[in-house]
């Protein structure tokens, strides 16, 4: 069964239909790309999947849970992680503390055990630190753990967001334009990281305008245009799809 199912999702903002009856599904272990022109509704869809916004109609199922019915933070607890197009790192917290927040859903200490610093709490804090450092090393930021996150350049911020999300041990990871602002060498490194993450068993849905990156890394591509799904299939097929070329890639192929 599919891990994540988007079923007939429509999302309206006032008079604007940002998503129109979109359906697709994501299977375990896949890397799937979501592409489309600017304003096609990709980020909107991410917001619905990660639970911070709700569809106007239709459903997003993660396994058997309807994400539209759950509190926003529950998507993460269930295993949906994400990064943001406009980076949302916690500025003026350290890089490591950023990642530690990612462990939130996987740890338990509440106010009272924090107040009292019970031994159990101390053990848990230690585990959080270790897991967070591991996540940082996975994206190659291990040596910047104690810097202030606000000082990171754009590209590293994306990596930090990935590490942060990885710390929450997601089953599905949503990446919103992770390669934006990276040069080619850096993009190649990013592809390497994404592949490793996939090999560790995380299913990935990504939005990206860098076609090289998309074609290189994804197993399947979904194309949105003006909120409608216009194509879905393996990269090679998408690349040659007339409609996709016209709407997105450009004529002079």
């Amino acid at each position: 069964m599919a891990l994540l199912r988007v079923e007939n999702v429509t999302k309206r903002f006032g008079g604007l239909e940002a998503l129109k009856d979109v359906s697709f599904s994501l299977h375990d272990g896949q890397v799937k790309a979501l592409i489309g022109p600017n304003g096609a509704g990709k980020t909107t869809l991410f917001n619905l999947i990660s639970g911070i916004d709700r569809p106007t109609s239709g459903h997003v199922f993660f396994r058997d849970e309807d994400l539209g019915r759950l509190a926003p933070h529950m998507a993460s607890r269930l295993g949906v992680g994400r990064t943001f197009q406009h980076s949302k790192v916690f500025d003026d917290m350290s890089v490591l503390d950023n990642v530690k927040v990612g462990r939130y859903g996987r740890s338990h200490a509440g106010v009272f055990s924090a107040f009292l610093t019970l031994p159990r709490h101390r053990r848990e804090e230690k585990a959080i630190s270790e897991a967070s450092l591991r996540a940082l090393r996975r994206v190659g930021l291990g040596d910047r753990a104690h810097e202030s996150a606000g000082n990171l350049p754009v590209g590293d911020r994306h990596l930090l967001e990935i590490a942060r999300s990885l710390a929450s041990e997601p089953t599905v990871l949503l990446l919103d334009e992770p390669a934006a602002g990276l040069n080619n060498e850096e993009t190649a490194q990013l592809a390497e990281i994404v592949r490793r993450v996939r090999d560790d068993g995380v299913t990935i849905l990504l939005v990206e305008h860098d076609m090289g990156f998309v074609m290189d890394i994804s197993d399947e591509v979904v194309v949105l245009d003006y909120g409608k799904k216009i194509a879905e299939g393996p990269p090679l097929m998408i690349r040659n799809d007339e409609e996709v070329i016209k709407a997105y890639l450009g004529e002079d192929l």
Partner: protein
Amino acid sequence: MSELSLSQVSTGYGRIQILHDIDLRVGDGEIVTIVGANGAGKTTLLRVISGLIGIWGGTVTFKGRSLSRSSVEARAGLGLVQIPEGRQLFGSMTVEENLELGAYCRRRDGRPFLEKRDEVFTLFPRLGERRRQQAGTLSGGEQQMLAIGRALMAEPEMLLLDEPSMGLAPLLVKEIFTTLRELNSRGLGMLLVEQDARIALKLADRGMVMERGRVVLEDKASALLDNPEVQAIYFGQHGGGGGSRTENE
């Protein structure tokens, strides 16, 4: 003439020095592009030129005058206009109001607002459709269009662009670079920071490569395009798959 030049500029944040003795010249009507890794200091350099951060040493001159005593807003008034990283739109104001504010520094001496606005709408029809929408709710790409449009409203004499292609669909990147070329052909000088080195160098007259706050390579754009070292790092093919997002050009 609208010539921008930096000599021996250095600066940093807090105690950490980021830029080291940068020399740079962008001639009238010239396009200079800067490529460099993440964190090389490109954005910092543009901030220094706009006056958003102070400098520790060196000089910045524009149109032959030293800018060391000019405020951010005064520099904009001189025609030195930046399209900042991350767009920095006025999120709770409408598209149209954003454009109007773009023309703020030309409120006394510029061309009529409506004329310029319609030009922007011709350039980016998407913005015309969304003219009453709050800028903060535009999609990433729409926001980028608006940021460029807003800068054009200022009738810049020198445009500082920080990664204009970021977040744009391939089709749109091409369109925007076509627009930039067109603007340049009307005599507008540009300092362009861009991750997509190939498309940037194709547009530019000259190019510079920055590494850790220093200019390590400077040459004609065409020469850099052919430079194997640059090719390897900035348009190297990764993973055997695709290449640059404009590879199809």
